[in-house]
């Protein structure tokens, strides 16, 4: 095997090596540990970009771990969609890590950088794997790292939310295992491509079980994606997490969406008997509810990080409305919007941090406080992030929503449901705009100058301190990327279309993974 053939496993190997090295050098040479962590993220980005470029020609690369042939060994699959997700994950990680280093959020505990790398290991693995049990294992890797990252910095609020987050995810993992057990018992394989072939041969007696397995599996992914009614864990968890980490977590909910996009056409496609597209009828109503609940949360949120958390839920809902169509053009819109909404969510959390760092004990709460330093710049950043999150022009959310609206009109089998989808998307956009305008005007326009002595000395000291503008770099870069995603919408949607048709052409994946029949 040439070196380029081994590139497929690089996004898994790089963080796996960087994490223990960072752990070892962290105590003695903190700067070296940070450098290793940053270098690892940059290397992941380079590897992902090379894979993205290589996948553009439509070949599906597979990597057989330990050289065990496909349905028996674990196989990694790189197609266009996984290359897009790898690039997105590496980009977001670099931004989040950069922000954590600049704001010194990584200094609140010893193990930030190793945990961050393990998180990336889990994310990249989940995007690459072509084996269902391996997907479970990578989910666990990313979850256990996320528990550590979520609790980073500690404090009662984090611990309280942490217990709930861990309990919910342990239950989710158990359900994942039950679904896997059912699918293995029915098909005798765990390889996704192979399973897609074998579900067609299941006898009529077992069709009910197959349907249960399909719905259970998709429910677990919906839990990870925080789809209503399985969303309750997300706002509390994300709102109390260190903002740099929350920015990275913006991509974690997308892992659930990615898994739905990957698994449903491949395994529960047309040939799956009773399980054929089984989750599809439930996905659209759930997605619309998610969008509504998410943006209603944006409307009533008490502080910026809570608002960002609800915006993540709302964007997942909008995204799943498109996914629920299962056509090439709806999936194209979904993939384009997926990239956008991840970056927009990250930008919101980063801006919330920029604001909170300047307002002392007022933090990022959506109430009027004393004037703080660089309020205009911070306000500008917040406006840009809010424009992105709600989907107003000129940033890419507008194009994404436009694509979704356009694509859902002629989905076969939906009948008049597209009207509901339009209503949900447009109404939630309006609610979102009002919600962001409310918090924005309270924080950036109104100011309450407290009477002398009413402000605590630490507060007045913190408010008058000149804060460096360096912490605005990460949100600015994120918003610049969103602008670039908007300008490059032509090539981006072309790539997304190709990725969507590759996902729906399951036979090509089978040929690539199992070899020519």
């Amino acid at each position, binding site marked *: 095997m040439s070196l380029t053939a081994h590139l497929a496993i690089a996004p898994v190997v790089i963080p796996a090596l960087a994490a223990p090295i960072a752990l070892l050098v962290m105590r003695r040479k903190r700067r070296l540990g940070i450098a290793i962590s940053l270098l690892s993220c940059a290397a992941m980005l380079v590897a992902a970009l090379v894979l993205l470029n290589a996948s553009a020609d439509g070949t599906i690369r597979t990597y057989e771990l330990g050289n065990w042939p496909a349905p028996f060994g674990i196989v990694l699959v790189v197609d266009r969609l996984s290359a897009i997700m790898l690039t997105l994950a590496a980009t977001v990680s670099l931004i989040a890590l950069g922000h954590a280093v600049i704001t010194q959020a990584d200094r609140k505990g010893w193990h930030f950088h190793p945990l961050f790398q393990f998180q990336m290991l889990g994310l990249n693995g989940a995007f690459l794997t072509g084996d269902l049990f391996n997907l479970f294992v990578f989910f666990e890797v990313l979850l256990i790292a996320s528990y550590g990252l979520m609790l980073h910095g500690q404090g009662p609020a984090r611990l309280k939310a942490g217990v709930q987050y861990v309990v919910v995810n342990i239950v989710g*993992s158990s359900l994942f*295992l039950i679904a896997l057990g059912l699918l293995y018992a029915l098909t005798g394989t765990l390889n996704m491509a192979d399973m897609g072939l074998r579900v067609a041969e299941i006898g009529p007696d077992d069709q009910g079980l197959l349907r249960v397995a399909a719905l259970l599996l998709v429910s677990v992914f919906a839990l990870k994606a925080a789809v209503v009614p399985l969303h309750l864990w997300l706002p509390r968890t994300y709102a109390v997490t260190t903002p740099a980490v929350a920015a990275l977590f913006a991509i974690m909910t997308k892992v659930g969406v990615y898994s739905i996009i990957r698994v449903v056409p491949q395994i529960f496609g047309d040939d799956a008997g009773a399980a054929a597209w089984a989750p599809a009828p439930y996905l659209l109503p759930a997605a619309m509810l998610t969008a509504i609940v998410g943006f209603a949360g944006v409307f009533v949120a008490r502080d910026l990080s809570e608002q960002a958390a609800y915006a993540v839920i709302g964007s997942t809902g909008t995204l799943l409305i498109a996914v629920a169509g299962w056509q090439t053009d709806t999936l194209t819109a979904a993939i384009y919007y997926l990239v956008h909404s991840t970056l927009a969510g990250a930008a919101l959390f980063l801006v919330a941090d920029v604001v909170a760092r300047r307002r002392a004990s007022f933090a990022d709460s959506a109430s009027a406080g004393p004037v703080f330093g660089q309020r205009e710049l911070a306000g500008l950043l917040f406006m840009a992030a809010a424009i992105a999150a709600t989907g107003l022009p000129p940033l890419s959310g507008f194009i994404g929503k436009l694509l979704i609206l356009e694509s859902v009109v002629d989905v076969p089998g939906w009948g008049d449901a597209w009207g509901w989808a339009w209503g949900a998307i447009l109404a939630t956009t309006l609610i979102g705009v009002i919600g962001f305008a409310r918090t924005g005007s309270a924080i950036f326009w109104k100011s309450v100058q407290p009477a002398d002595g009413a402000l605590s000395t630490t507060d007045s000291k913190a408010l008058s301190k000149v804060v460096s503008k360096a912490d605005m770099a990460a949100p600015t870069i994120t918003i610049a990327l969103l602008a670039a995603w908007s300008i490059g919408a032509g090539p981006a949607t072309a790539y997304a279309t190709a990725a969507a048709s590759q996902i729906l052409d399951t036979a090509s994946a089978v040929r690539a993974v199992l070899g020519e029949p």
Partner: protein
Amino acid sequence: MTLEFLVASAIGILVAGGIYLALRGRTFQVVLGLTLFSYAVNLFLFAAGRLTLDRPPIWSKTVTEYADPLPQALVLTAIVITFGMTAFIVVLALRSFLETGSDQVDGDDAPCTLDEQAKADATPEPHT
């Protein structure tokens, strides 16, 4: 009483107990519930390879009927992962209790020792 019935009812009882405990309000019971639930899942995964008796492992090419080794490998992985997760949540629940003074999963300030619980039960609710 077949083997299948025994295993299936064991899984069912474990799941029922696990879900009941996992829905309780206090962290220790929730942790116990999750543990019971994961036992049930492990048994279920093991049963996914069919319950067979007296089958040899894969070691000879002449044997056609052998015990499926894959579910055992899956169960082993699942046990290791759940073990780690359980250890983690026990420590986390303890830290959370020490830091917030409450062992309720939803973080409410509820009585946390048996004495206080008894006291709270004895005092009538104040009328408003």
